[in-house]
């Protein structure tokens, strides 16, 4: 158990162990084996940030480099999934998903539904999200809410190495299409990861920290910023409960609502752009189903409605951080209902 592994190595280990267990699992993607040449050299790269490094050496031709044609290889993976293989396809940056929306939205997500429940599409699409990597506007977005919107897709957004391994194994064993979002700034984060294979069920949020004053609902890298904010706020006597969604589809509504019912105050933290986002989705859920429990308005902390800037100073301003989160929590914690004093109910 007690081994420390990086987020990146946890993903690599999940792929390796599952490929050893099940021969129908294949990997496809740009440079996932490692570029040109024979083994050795061919294995030198293992994906743009080295996540699949070493897998070609162990699993040979089941790790396939593809041309730079996302629409072709994502479509190929989805087709292979409907006919007996369990492909894990890497689409380097989620920003490039646009070129294969038909394959994902209209084909993979619809097969089970349109073919009377008789078709299964056990494909996993791994893809990187996140700003803060100096990758500019086309390599830095967090687009999980777009996929969460589509019925028939499952969306996983892990925040730590333990979850990354367990959720990826769960994704590979799942018989429906799963989009697996990996925040590139988390790849070097370390944590305890069991050596053995294990799974984490989808739709189970993790309560990262318990607290009775304010609920923070968040995901991916923002979990870490929220923890930093909570540690600072604790010194001032504000106790935060932090909920890490882990999967956005299915969504663990119960854990969110139960926490909000006990704290009555909530801040939703999401690195993505604010319109039609997980932040608005969670806020709407709470307003719809837990309004009576609220002691203060729901507060959202998100990026602004702009592309991710290339200028490093602007990019840093773009991303929510522990400071913004703490300020929002303070505002919510200190909020006094005015309508209770102006209405004369009792």
């Amino acid at each position: 158990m007690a081994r420390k592994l990086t987020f990146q190595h946890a993903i690599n280990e999940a792929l390796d162990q599952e490929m050893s267990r099940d021969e129908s699992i294949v990997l496809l993607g740009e440079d996932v084996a490692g570029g040109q040449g024979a083994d050795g050299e061919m294995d030198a790269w293992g994906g743009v940030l080295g996540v699949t490094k070493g897998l070609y050496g162990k699993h040979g031709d089941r790790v396939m480099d593809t041309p730079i044609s996302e629409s072709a290889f994502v479509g190929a993976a989805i087709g292979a999934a409907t006919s007996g293989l369990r492909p894990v396809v890497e689409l380097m940056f989620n920003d490039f998903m646009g070129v294969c929306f038909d394959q994902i939205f209209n084909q993979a997500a619809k097969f089970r539904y349109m073919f009377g429940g008789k078709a299964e599409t056990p494909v996993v699409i791994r893809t990187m999200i996140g700003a803060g990597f100096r990758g500019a506007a086309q390599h830095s977005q967090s687009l999980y809410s777009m996929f969460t919107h589509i019925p028939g897709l499952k969306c996983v957004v892990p925040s730590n190495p333990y979850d990354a391994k367990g959720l990826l194994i769960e994704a590979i064993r799942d018989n429906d299409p799963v989009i697996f979002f990996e925040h590139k700034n988390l790849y070097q984060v370390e944590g305890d990861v069991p050596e053995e294979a294990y799974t984490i069920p989808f739709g189970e949020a993790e309560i990262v920290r318990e607290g009775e004053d304010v609920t923070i609902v968040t995901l991916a890298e923002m979990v870490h910023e929220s923890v930093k904010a909570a540690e600072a706020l604790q010194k001032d006597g504000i106790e935060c409960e932090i909920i890490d969604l882990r999967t956005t589809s299915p969504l663990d509504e119960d854990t969110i609502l139960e926490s909000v019912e006990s704290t009555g105050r909530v801040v939703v933290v999401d690195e993505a752009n604010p319109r039609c986002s997980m932040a608005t989705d969670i806020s709407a859920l709470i307003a719809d189903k837990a309004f009576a429990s609220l002691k203060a308005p729901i507060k959202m902390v998100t990026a602004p409605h702009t592309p991710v800037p290339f200028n490093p100073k602007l990019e840093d301003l773009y991303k929510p951080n522990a400071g913004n989160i703490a300020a929002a929590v303070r505002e919510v914690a200190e909020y006094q209902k005015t309508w209770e004093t102006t209405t004369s109910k009792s």
Partner: protein
Amino acid sequence: MGDDNIQKLTMPKWGLAMTHGKVIDWLVAEGAVITAGAEVIEVETEKITGNVESPVSGILRRRVAQSGNDIPIGGLLGVVADASVTDADIDQFVESFIPEEVEDDGEAADDRPNFIEVGGRRLRYLKRGEGGPPAVLIHGFAGDLNNWLFNHGVLAVSREVYAIELPGHGESSKDVGDGSLDVLVDSVRDWLDAIGLTSAHLIGHSMGGAIALALAERHPERVLSCTLIASAGLGSEIDHGYLTGVVEADRRKSLKVHLEKLFADPSQVTRQLVDDVLKFKRLDGVTDALRLISDKLVVDGRQAWVIGERLQQLSIPMLVIWGDQDQIVPATHAAGLPQTTQVEILEGCGHMVQMESAGGVNRLLVEFLGGAD
């Protein structure tokens, strides 16, 4: 005045993952006379809350750590000395105290579990202490070596003490064959062979007690004594709902309800404890292994293997310990045992009596093992 008359109380290490503990409160006043083994201070870790026992006797001269302080393992909690030591000497001792070196990952080298291949399975065990006739700790159903975190170190002061992880449990291989008690008993026997222990004191909790009993019956020459804690195998009643609940629960909330039955005080079941059991259950093969074992352990709602009258024929020293509020295996099973058996019922404790009354159980064990060596 040399340091010889001044003795330190330090933060113990309970379990493999513990790196520090938070002081809740002192249980004894400054100036009080304490004896070795007395519980002196309550400490909370991420996993569990427990009372630290003083390893020494004397006057508690200084309470160094205060409520709310976070102290690393090996850090100074208090100072024990007799009345002849001056306050200045104690000040000096506190000032110049240097915690013993712990390695950078917080684990002392002799505190790491090992694996050994036994009968095609990889079994994990933790050895602590040296010399003396050895003792072996055998956990119960769905347990692991951390069930002994309050006991292992205390027992290891005077002998080598092993905590083994049974097949299907902890980090040992998850293959349990047909899940029968025989498979588990044979695994422990083969493990004794592999480690090179010709004989040992066996200390079993719950299902681990039944394993110890069966081993004593089949291989009496290997067993110096048997300590049975909230043991299976002594009567037929058992809370079958607990076993099936632990096997089938796959979410935190559904699991917590069952784990709370283990303690007289359900607040002992922390979020971390539930998390640890859940993480264990989510390892490949664990649920199947536990289901196989459970189906063999309990048939028609009753314990399938009970030693009964055959207990009379065992001529090894026996100590039976039970918590009077055990909700899993009733403490009434401690009644009617052979006259030669030492029976101890601890009040206000549940099934995990070795955790809930660690000090009491440790005292009984140390004394019993000393007499049985």
